[in-house]
């Protein structure tokens, strides 16, 4: 096992640059801003005739998805391809894992195929950390979502969306609405907003869908939707994660929509130029009304575009951090 936390956080190299991207926890404001700035310049690449730059030519990015995903998987693939990397995607849930191979064995095999980066999505919280600690240190690990814990690239693409549409988050009121309990997106967003200096972070949810100790994130909790949405600049809706619910948390979807669904009428309580975000996939008529999802306030599809740029930034920055670390260690050895 590599020594980590005592000397420096696992996801940073000796110079404080990203070498893995596991969680937004412990990353400072400068680093988050650097990710956003880098993503901004990659956005321009996506608007060109040839949407490709040669930064990661000859590198192999391996998407290892233990959980289903469409948006995250395809935008990671596209991000890697736009950086000229070679990409393979493994849906582990449908391959060797079902034949009894362990997570570690699967990864060791991929490592033996000389992959340079793993993008990992897993249903268990902490899976990406575990992999970053136990695979060979030359492989950069990107967390594509682990259980209820974190979805850091989603968090950063949400920050990029807010910054591009509303400017700096510092003086904005941001409401995160819905199934906070099961949401890794909510956790990553709360950490990112706090780190970037947002002073008014609100979470709106029924008591049964709020995690214990939510106050530690420095947020204001509302159980009344109208009260929570009053004069906000940004509304981040969350998907109701029915697949993670073991029953008893909600009376019914209809009841949830009646109390916490984002409708045109409810949105009228927010600022007139408020933006509406959603990490997708959206459940129309469960957490959001179709007219809102497709309406003028919605930036849901812009989020997808920004997601590619953010993932390009994270892939190139971690690869760069890994390379720098290897060089540093070689020099030290001499």
């Amino acid at each position, binding site marked *: 096992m590599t020594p980590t936390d005592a000397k420096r956080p696992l996801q940073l190299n000796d110079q404080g640059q990203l070498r893995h991207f596991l969680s937004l926890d412990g990353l400072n404001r400068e680093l988050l801003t650097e990710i956003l*700035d880098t993503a901004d*310049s990659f956005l321009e690449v996506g608007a060109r*005739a040839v949407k490709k*730059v*040669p*930064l990661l030519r000859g590198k192999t990015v391996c998407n290892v998805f233990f959980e289903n995903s469409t948006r995250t998987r395809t935008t990671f693939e596209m991000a890697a391809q736009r950086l000229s990397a070679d990409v393979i995607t493994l849906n582990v849930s449908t391959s060797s894992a079902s034949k009894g191979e362990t997570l570690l064995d699967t990864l060791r095999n991929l490592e033996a195929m000389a992959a340079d980066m793993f993008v990992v999505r897993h249903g268990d919280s902490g899976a990406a950390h575990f992999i970053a600690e136990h695979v060979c240190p030359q492989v950069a690990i990107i967390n594509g979502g682990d259980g209820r814990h974190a979805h850091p690239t989603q968090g950063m693409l949400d920050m990029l969306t807010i910054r591009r549409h509303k400017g700096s988050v510092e003086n904005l009121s941001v409401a995160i609405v819905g199934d906070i309990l099961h949401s890794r997106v909510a956790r990553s967003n709360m950490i990112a907003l706090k780190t970037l200096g947002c002073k008014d972070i609100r979470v709106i949810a029924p008591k049964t869908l709020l995690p214990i100790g939510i106050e530690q994130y420095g947020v204001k909790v509302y159980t009344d939707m109208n009260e929570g949405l009053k004069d906000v600049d940004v509304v981040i809706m969350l998907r109701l994660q029915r697949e993670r619910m073991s029953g008893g948390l909600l009376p019914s979807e209809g009841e949830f929509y009646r109390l916490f669904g984002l409708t045109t009428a409810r949105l009228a309580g927010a600022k007139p130029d408020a933006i509406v975000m959603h990490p997708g996939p959206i459940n129309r008529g469960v957490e959001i009304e179709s007219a809102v999802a497709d309406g003028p306030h919605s930036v849901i599809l812009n989020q997808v575009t920004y997601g590619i740029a953010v993932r390009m930034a994270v892939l*190139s920055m971690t690869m*760069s951090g890994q390379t720098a670390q290897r060089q540093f260690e070689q020099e030290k050895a001499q």
Partner: protein
Amino acid sequence: MILPVPAELISQMAIDLKAHLARRGITEPRFIGIRTGGIWVAQALLRALGSDSPLGTLDVSFYRDDFSQNGLHPQVRPSELPFEIEGQHLVLIDDVLMSGRTIRAALNELFDYGRPASVTLVSLLDLDAAELPIRPNVVGATLSLKPTERVKLSGPAPLILELQDSSLDPAL
């Protein structure tokens, strides 16, 4: 060594560039500066030419061949080309030509936008240290430096050249 004064070089470069473009029969050149020094030189050159052509800017960080050694430049800015590249005669402008690797990266990037009819290379200084077969068509001055010496351009106005020597100042 006494370094030349950029303003004086630029007026001569404007004359040389005009002559070069006339010889080639290029009437509508498109100007592109390489971030950051190249943009300053390009702006000064456009003023000297009395031209109000739009200036394209190129940041070649995503195209450099030393990414695997040096990593990503921390402050990459978007490239902005306010005109078509396809079929156009381009004038590519940089401040200091050394190994030629920046120009190679810039050419690669430009070709991702389209197929230019021609590319003319203009550089304020040529340090006579090419590692690739890349030579400027128009150059302000050619210098030969000691291995420990470097030239730095500061700007945008006035443009000032400064000689740095890492054997005298270990911080460099």
